[in-house]
């Protein structure tokens, strides 16, 4: 239930997509220039270059055409230099030079850098008509670029422009292309052109519409909508059907994305609540300082990272794996200290425990504030947690994925350790029948301390993970305490599975409410629904039943 951006999902994905596209184009371009620089030109374009020096627009046009068709490696940077008024010629020698975006000069004939250019250089002039031609030529050139990413980006550009002039180029490119992924992009671009072109035959259209339907995204819908009014009825019908099926798919995808975000939020809730499920759920201790344990875990991560930064900056990616055991240890120790120092005197007095641990939380917050200051601390994400990938149309960030995986691992490890370890056995024994357990020789106070330490340690582990997605500040814990209690109570106190289901349900419900209500209102609604739910089932989703419960 942490605050999330209230921007509609579609906008985000659109922004992300365009960002990704720009990045791809940028990397593609730099890559292609790099290869250009590395290779010696095996095509002679000097005849074409000579035309630039004639100061005639028609000569320049011919030069552009022949350079574009030459396949020379420097053709792309050369033409983009021309487009941006960075192409010069020496009136005396008729030699042509271009300047890169990095302010380096290249010899247009060889594509090699030149240290010194002649002083008197003339600019090659262009007009709007030429600009259009150069743009198209550049698009075509990118279709043959050595880097597949550049080729895909070029195909996307054509897909969006639907310029019929590119048809011949793309046809040629399709024949040459060996990479299946790239070729399918080419075919989609071609289909977009075919669909939007007036003079296409119904058969061509029908095939193209199928191709676009196969692509199945917002851009495909746009391309299908560009079907000219003059198109035949059958094609129109086909296009309408294709649009509808794409829209259905997209709606489904949006739901899937919501579920994903919900799971991600749910795992954050679960992380925050999992320690509480032990201290509150199993022991019945109301630990209001639970959030501060999470915060201590996050600050431990911060300190570990600072240590790495100072001592071994090259191994920064290792800071999280190292922080995990340390955070567990630190918070578990603090937890044991709190249990031994305060809570053990208050067993059976839950309201007093609540107040005392609230006091502890104030002290811990203020201690951290005094030591580190009230501002947010920078905890950076390791390389394996940054970035995103596409999974069946869903954009999945590695950060979220890791947190979900980590949370589930933690959950099952906890479940198994309660089930199969000796401490787990003793824990269950003590919670079920303290006096009997004591009579069997179990040192119940020690088990109490260990159990509370375990719960606190889990909170610390949560802190390590949450440091990746939340601000590491003294108030970090405060943001989670109410949510965590809600999760545990909603799931049914003393039931770990209940906590899992409850966290995921709340996470997903929150994310599905957000598009309608906005982030804050969604959270308020969830809180109100929870309050109402607790009235209905005071003991949560998965309540224990029987005489013993009442006692």
């Amino acid at each position: 239930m942490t605050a999330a951006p209230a921007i509609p999902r579609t906008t985000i994905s659109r922004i992300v997509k365009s960002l990704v596209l720009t990045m791809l184009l940028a990397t593609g371009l730099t890559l292609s220039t790099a290869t250009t620089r590395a290779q010696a030109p095996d095509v002679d374009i000097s005849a074409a270059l000579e035309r630039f020096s004639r100061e005639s627009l028609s000569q320049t046009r011919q030069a552009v055409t022949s350079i574009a068709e030459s396949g020379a490696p420097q053709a792309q940077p050369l033409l983009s230099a021309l487009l941006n008024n960075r192409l010069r010629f020496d009136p005396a020698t008729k030699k042509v030079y271009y300047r890169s975006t990095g302010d380096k000069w290249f010899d247009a004939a060889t594509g090699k850098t030149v240290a010194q250019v002649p002083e008197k250089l003339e600019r090659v002039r262009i007009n709007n008509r030429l600009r259009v031609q150069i743009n198209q030529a550049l698009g075509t050139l990118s279709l043959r670029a050595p880097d597949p990413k550049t080729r895909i980006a070029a195909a996307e550009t054509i897909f969006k422009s639907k310029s019929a002039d590119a048809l011949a180029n793309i046809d040629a490119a399709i024949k040459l292309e060996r990479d299946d992924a790239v070729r399918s992009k080419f075919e989609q671009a071609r289909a977009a052109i075919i669909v939007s072109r007036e003079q296409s035959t119904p058969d061509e259209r029908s095939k193209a519409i199928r191709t676009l339907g196969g692509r199945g995204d917002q851009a495909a819908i746009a391309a299908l909508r560009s079907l000219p009014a003059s198109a035949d009825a059958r094609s129109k019908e086909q296009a309408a059907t294709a649009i509808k099926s794409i829209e259905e798919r997209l709606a489904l995808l949006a739901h899937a994305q919501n579920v994903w975000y919900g799971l991600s939020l749910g795992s954050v809730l679960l992380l925050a609540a999992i320690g509480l499920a032990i201290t509150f759920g199993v022991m019945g201790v109301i630990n209001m300082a639970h959030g501060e344990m999470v915060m201590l875990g996050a600050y431990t991560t911060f300190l570990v990272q600072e240590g790495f930064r100072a001592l071994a900056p090259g191994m920064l990616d290792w800071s999280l794996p190292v922080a995990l055991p340390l955070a567990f240890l630190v918070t578990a120790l603090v937890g044991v200290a709190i249990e031994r120092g305060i809570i053990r005197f208050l067993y059976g007095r839950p309201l007093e425990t609540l107040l005392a641990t609230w006091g502890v939380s104030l002290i811990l917050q203020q201690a951290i504030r005094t030591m580190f200051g009230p501002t947010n601390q920078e905890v950076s994400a390791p390389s394996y947690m940054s970035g995103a990938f596409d999974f069946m149309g869903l954009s999945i960030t590695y950060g979220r994925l890791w947190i979900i995986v980590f949370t589930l691992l933690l959950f099952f490890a906890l479940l198994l350790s309660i089930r199969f370890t000796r401490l787990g056995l003793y824990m269950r024994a003590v919670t079920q029948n303290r006096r009997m357990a004591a009579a069997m020789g179990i040192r119940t106070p020690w088990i109490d301390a260990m159990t509370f330490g375990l719960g606190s340690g889990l909170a610390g582990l949560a802190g390590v993970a949450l440091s990746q997605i939340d601000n590491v500040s003294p108030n970090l814990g405060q943001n989670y305490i109410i949510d965590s209690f809600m999760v545990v109570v909603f799931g049914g106190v003393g039931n770990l599975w209940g906590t899992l289901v409850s966290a995921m349900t709340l996470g997903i419900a929150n994310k599905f409410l957000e598009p309608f209500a906005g982030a804050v209102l969604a959270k308020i609604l969830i809180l109100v629904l929870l309050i109402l739910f607790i009235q209905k089932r005071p003991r949560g989703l998965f309540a224990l039943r029987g005489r013993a419960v009442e006692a």
Partner: protein
Amino acid sequence: MITKYLISRHDKAGIVFLTIVGLMAVLAPLSNLLLPESSPLHVPTYVLALLGKYLCYATLAVALDLVWGYCGILSLGHGAFFALGGYAMGMYLMRQIGTRGVYGNPVLPDFMVFLNWKELPWFWYGFDMFPFSLLMMVAVPGLLAFVFGWLAFRSRVTGVYLSIITQALTYALLLAFFRNDMGFGGNNGLTDFKDILGFNIQADGTRATLFFLSAILLIAVYLISRWIVHTSYGKVLVAVRDAEARARFLGYRTEHYKLFVFTVSAMMAGLAGALYVPQVGIINPSEFAPANSIEAVVWVAVGGRGTLVGAALGAFAVNFMKTFFTTGALAAYWLFLLGGLFILVTLVMPKGILGLFGSMSAKLRKPGSSQPAALQPAE
């Protein structure tokens, strides 16, 4: 019957308390208004404002003690009732500004003009009239407490569960009032008040009157609470606190008992909040912060819960400390102290300051006896 009660049966702590607050109610405003500033007995205006604030806090504490100390309902959301009463007063004061606001709109408060609102939202209707506003100061917190309590007590949500959902309640309200769309001024809340019932809110005379009213409210809330806890009703409350199931098996509809006292307590808290706002000059969503409500609980605990007088005493003591610490170089230590207070009062002195006095005087009178006479909720 009430008059009979008023003139009878007051324990020592209660008489001392009533005397002190009564004297304060009269003497502090008079000294502020009549004595010259040079006089050593003059109460400066800022002290008066501070004490007025404390009086409102003390009223909140007494209201909280009524439900927690006597009925065992640890409400972590009483700050919400206080704040709602405060907002009702704030809305009245906003409507009194009229054309004197920055934008000079005769009807819309400044923040609505700023948000480009064209009309007054329906829930702001009537707040230009004081009697209606006064009603709302009591009715809104009362109604919320009634609905919330009706749901919670009927389904037997008790103990820490109740505490947690009261906390969630005030948290949800906090989030809601932060939203500009709610129509309560969002983040900034309501402020820049000009006058109340036609009197300039900054004037010394108005301040003195507000102070007097706060003291009278505290006395009234104390007397009503004391009356409630001294009847059989109060005995049932304590019975519910100690063994609710037993009370039910005796045939008491405990949820009705809890609901009534919870609602009354919320109304008292609302009035305290309403008098608080003109004295501090602002009401904003931070009043809903869960931390505020918990802090009020510690006032009660420090003073001694289940004593009413102790609650008021605790509110004064803790807030005096807070003022002392947070205004000086010791500000960084205040939260340590407050946190320590929470721990100390639960571990070492569960009966609060009044409990310490009680056991000390009991020891002096008859050594060996541990009967804390002043502490028992119902004699």
